[in-house]
């Protein structure tokens, strides 16, 4: 599992997850409905099949389309951005076909799609050749690969014509998401590490080992103006989205070791930070249900390479509730605008590589389960099916 980017941190447990995928790759994969997975999600099915792998997807504001990443462009080993029409099944490419891309998102009202891309990088073809060679030799990708400094955020029409470049700073600019009114974009940038030459020796050592340490949350207007930094917290801050009411930002913060991650929300000016998770593992990829009542996220609480979906209430007052029960990778969940469907990325496929899954979401069951969940800090619930929350108080640095 060598996922890159956003709500999807580079997974430090590559080898472990790949090994798990190997076991799953034989024949039909059956999801664990009988173990409780049908509590909130029903009629689960694999949505995409083409390409080496696909993942990370977002509904259009009308719910009729899905924008997603997939490795299916001939001659390019990297993800490109595609939009799928739920009525016809037609899939069209949004990105240029060149370079690496990541993190698409629809703008409310316009049908435009933002995404990050390196297609302007002059060395792109060389990087593609190196990637093919790496696959031939089946080498593990180095962590630093993911944060290509040529990533910038672009806006394209549904037909794939790029209408605007929003960021120009050297350093990874990606992980963008529009506000519900379409007027702002929140994103992640590593621009503060550049020029690398001006870093202190200590920071330079960090950069060489773990460049995402310098990733911070930024906000800008939809036309790319007023780019403003919101976080100043050691460790990788990324995967930001607006809450459905547009009043707050939810994101994921890694600690300085890069091993522990938790979900937080904050005001649009970076103040009023609130912690939602405390599992003492990697909890990431948060996305709010359109009701605004709760947030879904991914955690490897149950095993280093076993990523499962959980939900937690908007205030983080109660213990999170487990959603998926299938060993392996389940991640990058998002909801349809009506809150009745969920899409996510899973490697429970015949190839053992990720594709997109779709299911019906039972909002009422999710609400009921969360309101029945013990408050955070209380004892572990007796029923293991309710998931389990962290026990400690919120004592994050900087709070």
């Amino acid at each position, binding site marked *: 599992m060598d996922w890159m980017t956003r709500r999807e941190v580079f997974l430090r447990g590559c080898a472990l997850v790949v090994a798990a995928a190997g076991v799953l790759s034989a024949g039909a994969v059956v999801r664990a409905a009988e173990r409780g997975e049908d509590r909130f999600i029903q009629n689960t*099915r694999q949505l995409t*099949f083409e390409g080496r792998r696909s993942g990370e997807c977002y509904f259009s504001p009308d719910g009729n389309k899905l924008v997603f990443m997939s490795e299916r462009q001939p001659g390019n080993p990297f993800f490109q951005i595609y939009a799928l029409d739920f009525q016809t099944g037609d899939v069209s490419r949004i990105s240029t076909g060149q370079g690496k891309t990541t993190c698409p998102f629809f703008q409310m009202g316009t049908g435009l799609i933002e995404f990050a891309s390196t297609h302007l990088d002059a060395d792109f073809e060389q990087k593609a050749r190196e990637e093919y060679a790496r696959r031939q030799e089946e080498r593990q990708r180095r962590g630093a690969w993911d944060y290509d400094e040529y990533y910038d955020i672009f806006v394209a029409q549904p037909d794939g014509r790029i209408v605007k470049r929003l960021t120009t700073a050297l350093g990874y600019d990606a992980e963008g998401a529009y506000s519900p009114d379409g007027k702002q974009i929140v994103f992640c940038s590593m621009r503060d590490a550049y020029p690398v030459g001006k870093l202190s020796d200590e920071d330079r050592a960090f950069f060489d080992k773990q460049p995402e340490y310098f990733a911070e949350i930024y906000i800008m207007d939809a036309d790319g103006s007023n780019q403003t930094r919101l976080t100043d917290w050691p460790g990788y801050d990324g995967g930001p989205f607006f809450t459905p009411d547009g009043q707050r930002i939810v994101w994921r913060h890694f600690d300085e070791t890069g091993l522990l991650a938790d979900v937080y929300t904050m005001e649009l000016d970076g103040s009023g930070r609130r912690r939602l998770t405390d599992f003492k593992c990697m909890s990431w990829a948060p996305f709010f249900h359109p009701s605004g009542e709760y947030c879904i996220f991914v955690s490897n609480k149950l095993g280093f390479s076993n990523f499962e979906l959980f939900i937690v209430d908007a205030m983080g007052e109660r213990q999170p509730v487990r959603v998926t029960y299938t060993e392996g990778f389940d991640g990058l969940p998002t909801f349809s605008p009506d809150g009745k469907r969920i899409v996510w990325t899973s490697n429970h496929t015949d190839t053992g590589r990720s594709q997109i899954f779709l299911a019906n979401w039972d909002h009422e069951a999710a609400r009921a389960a969360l309101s029945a969940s013990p408050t955070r800090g209380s004892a572990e619930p007796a029923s293991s099916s309710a998931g389990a929350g962290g026990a400690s108080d919120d004592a994050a640095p900087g709070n």
Partner: protein
Amino acid sequence: MRSTLRLALLVISVPTIAYAQADREKIPAEVMSGVAGLSPTIAADDLRAVVSFIASDQCGGRLTGSDGALLAAQYIATAFSRAGLKYPEDKDHYYQPFSFTAGVEMVTEKTRMEIVGSGADAAVSPCKLDADFRPLTFSDNGTAEGDLVFVGYGLVEPSSGGRGYDSYVNVDAKDKIVLALRDIPENVTPQRRQELALYAGDRYKAKLAADRGAKAFLLVTGPNSPNAGKLIKFRTSDRTSAAPILAASISGELADRLLAGTGVDLEKAQTALDGGEINPHATVQPKARVRISTELKRLPKICRNVVGILPPTGGCDEYVLVGAHYDHIGTGEGLGSLAKKGEEGQIHNGADDNASGTSVVLELAASLADARRKADPAEARRGLVFACWSGEELGLVGSSHYIEHPRVPLDKTVAAFNFDMVGRLRENKLIMQAVGSSPVWRRLIERRNVPAGFNLVVQDDPYLPTDATGFYTHGIPILAFFTDLHEEYNRPADDPETLNYEGMERVAGFAQQLIEDVSKPDVEIAYARVERSAPPEGRMSRRAYTGTVPDFAASGITGVRLSDVRPGGPAEKAGIKAGDIIVEFAGRKVTNLQDYSDALIGAKIDEAVPLVVERDGKKITLTITPTARPN
């Protein structure tokens, strides 16, 4: 459009016109009226009507060559006619007759074997049929005489990665009578046994000898093996065709006699081979000469495929084939019936297997023909061949015959769809098989399934136990639809009322869209090569017996769930119970039936091995001692 059906160059099978005409004249009225009630669109009611006829007791389980199969073929041909399908103008009908072996008899008075002394010592020592020797059912007919050569296990395993096994190294088998040990070395590792077992079938070994110029092939079950020294049973129900060599099994005693005076002791030789040595005695020629005559009478019978054609339009000359087998296993004798106690000998109606696939093909034929009639004839579209096969249950006989005698050129057949057991859609789960046969499938399946909404399980492997695989091995991409096994599979209880007709309607609708996609000549359907591990015909038959009955309906579990445990069998003695899930056998993980089957091939007879089952969520380790199946 007729020109596209000019097939003068094709080799024609030998249907008798009188036979075909006679068939048509006696089509029962209820067939005519039943077909007349079908609509030209895909509908659950139509599917139900077709299955109700084809899987009725009237069709008697549709054993290949039976009157019931003929009745089903008449129904299918009537439906094709009503849909307006064509057949080649040099053909007489939709029927494509083929002959097959319905059984085999030994002509004992013409079956003989003698040891012929060589040189001056020219005494002839006759061997006794059914005591010293017995022909194998796949033996060719004729007489052969030659010097004996002992080839150990007579195995040839293609070498890969430095591995490989070749009993014929330094052996000149040309014009010889080859003597081989049955099965595989007894003392190699379970893993190695599984690998070798893929190339150790009796017929496969005989063919290896034939390929090397041998005149006859003798097989002996070695003193170290289960059923040591015994002759192999002659089953008159065997429907196998003749191999290109005379073949017989011989007793251990006769083998000892043949090898006497050569310095080869069969038991010592086998013991050496069992330890892993390859062919230690290859250069030792037994000083024996053997003459053998065999005469087997194969009982020929005739059955028929039913093939209808929608010609291509707009100047296109390519075709897409849409097929399903309509035969089943009659009352189940000798054809893998899984009838439970008390059900034996009843009609196996085969509603899911494969009246379901047949009904889907008939519905597709009617609806696609209707669409063609309404379409602009100038628009380029590939032709469609609708084929209902017989002989599938006997070993893909009908479709194999078609491949030898195609009604449109195979090199113009760009894809083959197959529907085999599509009537049991459960929990929205549809299995798409052979997806690896072309890179185009995943793209088309993804697109059409977004609105169709199946919970799809896709599998790349094109080597399937169904008719489409023969097309794949002839260079044609294939796609197979399947709604999984179930509790009634190959039982008399596989009846029309157990099918999900609304589910079949959805499957047919989904398939119709995919067929329409690939009917467009600009859609390139590239062939993709998928590695196959070993020829299925090479597989040694399993000889370890455990007395476990897998639950074919089990899904959603890892391992093999048992529906039953045979009384007095090794499994019962080991403490295994119905409902247990086998997850490990002799240290090997068992995730599915294939794993279990492989593990059993690797199992040694009468040797206790650990077996892990899951019972009530707990893992329990038991010890099982597999016994030998009878020869």
